[in-house]
């Protein structure tokens, strides 16, 4: 109860701060963000879009980890955890893609440009979609768990390839959106603090939601097996 409340307050504070702190050219007070030329107010997306994509990736790694655990131990609980992580990962992935696309529209004039970051988040979306399509096409619980675990491992293994391939294929397109730019520019301390708070908040949100979902699915499983 307390954890939920703290999380709620924390994230509300982050959202409030992200939108209200003024952006001035030469920040003199602790509560001021610097203006990045060309981005200005649009830079505020940093506090939402990046944590969401980060969470989507964390969710996938978690799903893959529990898949491996399931194949080794055959404990249905691991499958529940894996599928729940994937479900939430899908939600965060959709949010990240949509926010990124909207930002791209405002910044570069078009919703989609096939640059490396956009393509990788899209591929992650495809993987999640394929994972759930596979799960829905299988009836037997054990087979569903085994095959989706195998698929998530295969998908996880191909992901590193994108890190090497994409920069070579799409080198001629737009410069990277916000993430790499930020990496090169020293982030102003205030922005950095707010960003890290947002990152922590979204990650905590994910784990809380995941925990809830796992508990719900466990009950559903018990209910189902008792009904048989």
């Amino acid at each position, binding site marked *: 109860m307390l954890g939920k409340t703290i999380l709620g307050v924390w994230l509300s504070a982050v959202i409030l701060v992200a939108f209200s702190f003024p952006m001035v050219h030469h920040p003199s007070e602790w509560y001021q963000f610097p203006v990045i030329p060309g981005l200005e107010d649009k830079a505020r997306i940093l506090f939402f879009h990046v944590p969401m994509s980060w969470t989507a990736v964390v969710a996938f790694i978690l799903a893959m980890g529990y898949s491996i655990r399931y194949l080794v131990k055959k404990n249905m609980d691991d499958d529940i955890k894996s599928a729940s992580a994937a479900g939430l990962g899908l939600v965060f992935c959709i949010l990240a893609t949509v926010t990124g696309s909207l930002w791209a529209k405002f910044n570069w004039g078009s919703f989609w440009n096939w640059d490396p970051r956009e393509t990788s988040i899209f591929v992650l979306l495809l993987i999640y979609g394929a994972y759930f399509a596979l799960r829905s*096409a299988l009836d037997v619980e054990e087979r569903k768990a085994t*095959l989706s675990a195998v698929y998530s*491992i*295969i998908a996880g*293994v*191909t992901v590193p390839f994108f890190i090497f391939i994409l920069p070579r294929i799409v080198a001629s397109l737009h410069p990277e959106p916000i993430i790499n730019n930020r990496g090169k520019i020293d982030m102003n301390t205030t922005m950095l603090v707010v960003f890290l708070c947002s990152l922590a908040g979204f990650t905590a949100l994910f784990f809380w939601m995941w925990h809830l979902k796992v508990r719900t699915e466990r009950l559903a499983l018990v209910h189902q097996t008792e009904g048989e």
Partner: protein
Amino acid sequence: MSSLWYASVTIFVKDLRSELRTRYSLNSLLMFVITTLSVILFSLGSENVSSDVLSGVLWIIIFFSTMSGLSRSFVSEEERGTVMTLQLTARPLAVFFGKLLFNTVLLAALNLLTVTLYLLFITNFVVQNYTIFITTMGLGTIGLASASTILAAIIAKANTKGTLYPVLSFPILLPLLLTVINATKMSVEGAAVYEAFSEFQILISYFIVITTISYLLFEFVWKE
């Protein structure tokens, strides 16, 4: 080791024989390639499409022929009800390597056909550097075959096999497709062989990674 090899080859020969005996699927695959190519030719008409686009189109045809044809190795076992017999008589790894070999040979034949027809009929697509082109085709074929085999094994146990196969395959095959399309573009533009080395490296590592992971995971998929 030699018994594994012998068992795999036996399964490969069995699959080859049953396909050649009935020829239904081989004929339909052949027609698929011809039909797709005809559609492309009709839609291109007399327009001058850049060779970049044509490289991509070639691999679209190859991708979809793979999707039509390569799931048969496992799905036909399910349809004919011979899965249990195979599970009892052969070791899982022998089944895997046998089916992988069959898929590779099938895909190699399909690709040879596709590429020959493509080069013959699409006049704007002229390969300048054949070394790159042939190496790309070879590495692309084995990479496609290895990924398709494990995925075919997965979907053979599912309900909506036909539509599920491309859905599952696309994210997995995407690194391969992007790389081969890039390498094909290079071969058409007449790049030097050493420029394509990083593409070849990616293709070789993709093949090794996918085959290894399939080899490790196949038993989970195959056994009930």
